[in-house]
């Protein structure tokens, strides 16, 4: 039987979720999960390649890549463009990072504060605008940005007072950074939980792939593989948030 | 041997040549004089089709052309049988003196390098540049540049030499050396057309003087007719102001 090669674009700069650019073996939670999926699906051969964010989505749209991962959320615009399996590959807990003395614990506390700009069109942006619609009484100021300033810098900017708060998925290794650099920063309780998915290039052929991956993910979650990998990379079990 | 008829040319709105007629016989040395801006340079350029007249005809021995129907082979035939010496020298700046003289022989006349070299050496010797063979133009004085230009022109053995104010870009002290070379060339019997402001010199070397004014030939005759008994009032006025300086 023919083994079909599947080209996968993984996030290049999102340690520990996934990192490693061209020429470097991708590592992290998602690459490990993908390997586990491949082990269950011998009819495919997964070929992972770290790619910059911008390269991922276009490559996926044109069919250069069959799959892209990188902590993607489900969004209507994406559902129209891509195939998205039912089951999530992971979950991200959105937390607010602020100075320990800031007294910021939830979204409502952000009124009148300087918030680090959020990635335009990304999950946080979607979450924040939705939250704003639902809570019109609390006017918070959100700016979108397309800049690629790494989040460790953002944490430092919160620390030194340039901003008051950073809203971010918590599965990017923030705690390591905070500990290593001895930052005076705390994370709030999760203000939202988002499931993350793999995105698949929309084509007839890939419909089966999407279903196969969906099935594999269900099994991996059921047999505790995902929980184990989550512990390994994030130090906590995020599968409890996945549904 | 060279006959131009009713040459007309304008740059944009300014009419430069207004119907020039000129004929030159073999062995003639014709000096063209006239005020600045009357189209003397333009006239010489027409002969080599470096500017495009609006109308007129040229006949060069058996080669004939109407400028309204330019004809590549005719143009090339005339170019090959005339040689031009420019006011600004226009020596090729990327070539040494001897390369300047050899290159047209090799490229255009397809002579062997050895043959070209022999000719070039002879002509450069004639103009007194034997010691500057391998200098680049940027290392030469104006007089030396102009003599290189003359040697390049002579080397192609033209039937007609065209000189366009060959000394007017030179320092006064250098003028003499170039005039001597030109005198030598013209007295060797080669047909020449010479635009110049050196009245005395024109008088000495030419057997015919053409006075151009406002784009036409306003007077034409022997040196004696032109200089000693100018009939045309513009000519008389021009000669007055030119000679006043000298």
């Amino acid at each position: 039987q023919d083994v079909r090669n599947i080209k996968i674009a993984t996030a290049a700069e999102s340690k520990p979720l996934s990192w490693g650019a061209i020429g470097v073996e991708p590592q992290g939670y998602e690459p490990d999960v993908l390997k586990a999926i491949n082990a269950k699906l011998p009819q495919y051969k997964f070929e992972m390649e770290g790619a910059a964010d911008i390269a991922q989505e276009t490559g996926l749209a044109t069919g250069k890549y069959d799959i892209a991962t990188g902590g993607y959320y489900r969004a209507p615009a994406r559902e129209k463009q891509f195939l998205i399996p039912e089951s999530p590959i992971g979950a991200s807990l959105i937390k607010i990072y602020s100075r320990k003395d800031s007294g910021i614990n939830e979204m409502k506390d952000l009124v009148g504060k300087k918030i680090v700009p959020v990635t335009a069109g990304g999950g946080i942006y979607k979450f924040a605008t939705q939250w704003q619609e639902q809570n019109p009484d609390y006017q918070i100021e959100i700016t979108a940005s397309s800049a690629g300033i790494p989040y460790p810098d953002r944490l430092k900017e919160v620390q030194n007072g340039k901003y008051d708060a950073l809203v971010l998925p918590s599965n990017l290794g923030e705690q390591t950074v905070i500990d290593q650099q001895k930052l005076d920063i705390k994370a709030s309780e999760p203000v939202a939980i988002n499931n993350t998915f793999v995105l698949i290039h929309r084509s007839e052929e890939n419909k089966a792939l999407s279903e196969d991956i969906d099935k594999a993910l269900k099994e991996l979650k059921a047999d505790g593989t995902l929980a184990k990998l989550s512990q390994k990379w994030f130090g906590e079990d995020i599968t409890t948030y996945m549904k | 041997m060279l006959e131009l008829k009713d040459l007309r040319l304008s740059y944009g709105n300014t009419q430069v040549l207004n119907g020039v007629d000129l004929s030159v016989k073999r062995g003639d040395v014709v000096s063209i004089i006239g005020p600045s801006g009357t189209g003397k340079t333009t006239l010489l350029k027409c002969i080599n089709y470096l500017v495009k007249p609006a109308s007129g005809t040229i006949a060069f021995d058996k080669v004939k052309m109407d400028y309204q129907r330019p004809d590549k082979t005719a143009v090339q035939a005339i170019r090959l049988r005339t040689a031009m010496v420019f006011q600004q020298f226009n020596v090729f700046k990327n070539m040494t003196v001897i390369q300047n003289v050899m290159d047209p022989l090799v490229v255009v006349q397809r002579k062997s390098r050895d043959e070209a070299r022999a000719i070039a050496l002879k002509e450069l010797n004639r103009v007194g540049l034997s010691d500057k063979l391998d200098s680049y133009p940027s290392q030469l004085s104006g007089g030396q540049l102009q003599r290189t230009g003359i040697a390049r022109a002579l080397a192609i053995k033209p039937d007609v030499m065209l000189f366009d104010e060959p000394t007017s870009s030179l320092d006064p002290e250098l003028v003499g050396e170039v005039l001597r070379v030109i005198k030598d060339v013209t007295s060797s019997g080669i047909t020449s057309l010479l635009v110049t402001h050196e009245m005395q010199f024109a008088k000495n070397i030419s057997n015919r003087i053409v006075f151009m004014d406002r784009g036409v030939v306003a007077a034409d005759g022997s040196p004696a007719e032109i200089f000693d008994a100018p009939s045309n009032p513009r000519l008389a006025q021009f000669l007055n102001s030119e000679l006043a300086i000298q």
Partner: protein
Amino acid sequence: MFDSEVLLPDLWDILGAVPMTLLMALAIFVFSTIVGSLFAMVEYRRITVLRELVVAYKVAFKGVPMVIVIFLAYYGLPPALQFLAALVGIEFNGHLTPNWVTLIVALTACVAAFQAEVVKGALNSFDTGQADAAYSLGYKRSQLFRRVMLPQVIVAAIPDLANSFMVIMKALSLGFAIEVVDIFAQSQLTAALNFYYLEAFLIAVVIYMVIAYIVTHGADRVEAALRART
């Protein structure tokens, strides 16, 4: 091929960033011209030591890509400012420096190196015979400069200055890396929000080309008008 429903709103979005971009470009243009002119004067007058420093400055800022200078400023400027403020005894959190200030400082530093060349070129195009004439008539150096040199040097520099303005406009596009929103950054944002990338970028391309056309032709007009007088 392109969705016209997207083009128009996108156009408005991106046009919105034009005034801010022009304003920042103008600021950088003014500052860098001032600094560049000082550099050029140092070289023109052959002031020792300072002259070597200016040359070193120019080599450094011409050799390093502007993006890198921007990043260096982004990470280096706030602590530097804080340090300087502390020296003079001011309590100031340098990290509060807004990014657009950082960008303007970084680009001014880069462009000044080029403006110095522009001004020097214009100064050198001034023929010294006129200086001889002025001195022989008894003009002082400052009178010569104000009455004769400056008017001519400005006209001579116009085409290059127009060119540097466009360079600044384009250089501002690098500001997106530290999230200063100019025409380019706005087109990227617009695209990221509705996923129509190529459309937004093409609109930005057109806007840049139109601005370049206006700037260069405007400069040509001004120069032609003044040219008769020099």
